């Protein structure tokens, strides 16, 4: 079973067209293994992206350098998945 230890989901809100364009480019970079839960649409519209542990700090640094603000939407994805699994098993019992 694939684990998502250390993965975070970030909420990013592009403030202007330049940030929007940058995030759109980021969507096409497959090397960072970013998973856009909510895609890039328009200025002021939240983007949700899951970042794996190995690229999380790099992504945060890039966003900071570009002056793009973000907040963690899910701090520890695996913890939430564990909770979901626990609930499923509880119901099954």
């Amino acid at each position, binding site marked *: 079973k694939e684990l998502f230890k250390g993965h975070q989901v970030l909420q990013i809100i592009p403030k202007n067209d330049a940030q929007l364009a940058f995030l759109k480019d980021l969507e096409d970079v*497959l090397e960072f293994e970013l998973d856009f839960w909510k895609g890039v649409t328009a200025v002021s519209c939240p983007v949700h992206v899951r970042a794996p542990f190995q690229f999380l700090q790099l992504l945060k640094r890039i966003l900071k350098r570009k002056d793009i603000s973000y907040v963690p939407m899910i701090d520890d994805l695996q913890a*939430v998945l564990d909770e979901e699994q626990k609930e499923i098993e509880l119901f099954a019992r």
Partner: protein
Amino acid sequence: SLKPKNTDSFNYSRYHKLSEIYSFQDMLVAENPNLVSKIVIGQSYEARPLSVLKFSTGGTNRRAIWIDTGIHAREWITQASGIWFAKKIVKDYGSDPALTDILNNMDIFLETVTNPDGYDYTQNSNRMWRKTRKPNPGSSCVGVDPNRNWDSGFGEPGASSNPCSETYRGPSAHSESEVKAIVDFVVAHKNIKAFVTIHSYSQMLLYPFGYTSAPSKDEAELHSLAQKAITDLASLYGTRYTYGSIIDTIYQASGNTVDWTYEQGIKYSYTFELRDTGFHGFLLPAKQIVPTAEETWLALMAIMSHTFKNPY
């Protein structure tokens, strides 16, 4: 094990394994032989049946409404809502005059797990899986985005040609058996008048087009019906939806389901993006399944009633 003995004791407030959903469907058919039947319209890549529940009070090839959930595997709220819709239909037939009127004249088809291979994979291997599970020759990446695989603007901007992308369109239109099965069914049926495909989690109700910014010829009607549907939806818990054409409301998406169905002549073609009202994304807590399904049902009823009252 507390295996439910019937669909009344089935727990609608939790997420279920594929086998449990299959059992639910069979129980529903067994309990309501004069209203519900199960048809298998094809096979997934991993040879699972593509089952569709048919709700019909008789007649031959009546005007019909299609609803599907779970084409994107990880959007668990949609499969769970689909199960709730199925039970709601049998519960309300005969007591809710609007639904009874619809079913006395039209059929409803409901595919609750449109991408069963993907759903099983999310349950057992990778909760974040979205696509189908067919390998891509020449690539280590598996699967196609079944909402980019339809023959409408296929290959145009708004989908990826890279098999490793989450929006990989596939090698050719209708290359995915999960998509082809619906295509064949819709084309053969010839009398489907509304087609609603259900996703999550951006709280939107969208209509064609996604591959082009050109408005559809029915845009005004689709827009006002969407407005009515999301107003009805919001009346229950105040959940706020946006609505509009796919390309104007989210982004360009070529090869998507409802562009194809609309171009097949199904005027009332809509795609839903159900809840997340909080910060859960695809991990919507199970306690929100029933409220989500309840509010969505009101919007579905608006679309179905309008379709029934406005034959074309």
